[in-house]
């Protein structure tokens, strides 16, 4: 494999890890691999102008749209910008009531009683995006019990919610 095709192969792999994540929710995301840049373990989606700039002037630490990072065990951790990108395309989605939405943003799991609507998969082990009643994506979770059979109790485990921004701010404050 030539150096060039090797780097094209890497690009494909970089795009694939993100597109595979989108498919967990039944969303088809097609990224232009030439605009996806990797910095350490973090992925970014650039526009043409940013691409030219970052190629010319290296050493950047953040650029364009942050897509997520690969953590321990090669697990992909999405950014909220990526979640918002796939929100419109995702088939697996649940809509929750106000109280549940607030609890979810505070890091709590979702009980069946707080779910207003379910679209797409209801199967245990599948992933679903979580929306409030305004249609705003608040994060995502893992369906822990078959939602068709469940009458009440724990339905979706919180895997990531937008309250993470507050937790990060708090952590940064403590570090300072």
């Amino acid at each position, binding site marked *: 494999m030539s150096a060039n095709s090797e780097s094209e192969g890497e690009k494909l792999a970089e795009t694939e890890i993100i597109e595979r994540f989108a498919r967990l929710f039944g969303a088809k995301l097609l990224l232009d691999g030439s605009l996806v840049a990797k910095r350490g373990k973090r992925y970014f989606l650039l526009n043409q102008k*940013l691409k030219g700039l970052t190629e010319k002037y290296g050493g950047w630490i953040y650029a*364009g749209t942050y897509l997520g990072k690969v953590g321990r065990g090669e697990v992909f951790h999405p950014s909220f910008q990526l979640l918002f990108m796939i929100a419109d395309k995702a088939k697996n989605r649940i809509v929750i009531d106000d109280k549940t939405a*607030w609890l979810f943003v505070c890091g709590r799991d979702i009980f069946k009683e707080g779910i207003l609507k379910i679209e797409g998969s209801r199967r245990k082990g599948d992933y679903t995006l979580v929306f409030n009643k305004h249609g705003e994506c608040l994060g995502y979770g893992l369906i822990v019990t078959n939602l068709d059979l469940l009458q009440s109790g724990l339905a979706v485990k919180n895997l990531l919610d937008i309250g993470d921004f*507050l937790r990060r701010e708090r952590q940064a404050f403590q570090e300072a």
Partner: protein
Amino acid sequence: MLGKEFFVGRYRRLGWEFREASPRQAIRVNVMNVDGVDVVGRLRNLGVELEKVPFLQNGYWVVRSDFSVGATVEYLLGYYSIQEAAAQIPATLFTDLKDKTVLDACAAPGGKTVQLADLMGNTGVIVALDVNGRRLKALMNQLERCRVRNTVVYLLDARRVSELGLKFDRILLDVPCSGNFAADENWFRRRTLRDVERNAKLQRQILAEVVKVLKDDGEIVYATCSLEPEENELNIDWAVKTLGLETVEIDCYGEEAPTKVFGKKLDESVRCCRRIWPGETQGFFVCKLRKRR
């Protein structure tokens, strides 16, 4: 030379009689993210009492809130930022930001970077620099929360920006400064004239560097939250006399800057700068510059 009496005496000589000030908390709506969403209405429904800031297009005072306005879903979705009212002024002073290449030279923690992206509608490019890695983390969080897509961030001292080899249409210089008593209750105990002079020197170094990367028809907005003339009028007087820059008339909140400071007569064009004494806002100074034509 330090202490409240010393600094208050200086303010008096600049024409301002000292009084305690408590700047009001303010938010700024991120227009790029609120397509069809009535953010102000939603906050009011949550019980947050807001009042439009008369001198800002997208700014609101928080009159009353039973909880932190930094802990709402609307905030976490990037619909608004918490940004002090005077600090919202500098980014609005540029002409025509769409599709421009913009430098935010001392960008962290990123409030003004997000505002620039908002005013640019996420078009063009913002190059955001800062020397403080920890503060850059805060900036990157803000960029993600507010869905900014047009910014590239470098851990780089603004005094080395010419190493990037780029030229900029617009440069925001929200330079490191001594701050002011309205934003820091221990300010008078902590600050000395030596601090002020050290900051003024750093600010001149940054000004001198960014002139090298300003396009011939470009604009610089220089801002500090300091009340000390060494960091404000005296620096602008120096820039006008030594860097080939000229001030530009601006129409914004604040008083015309004095052109006579502690007995020293400054270039007449320094009056184009705006000085904001603490009151409803914190203390602030802002000025627009371009290359002399």
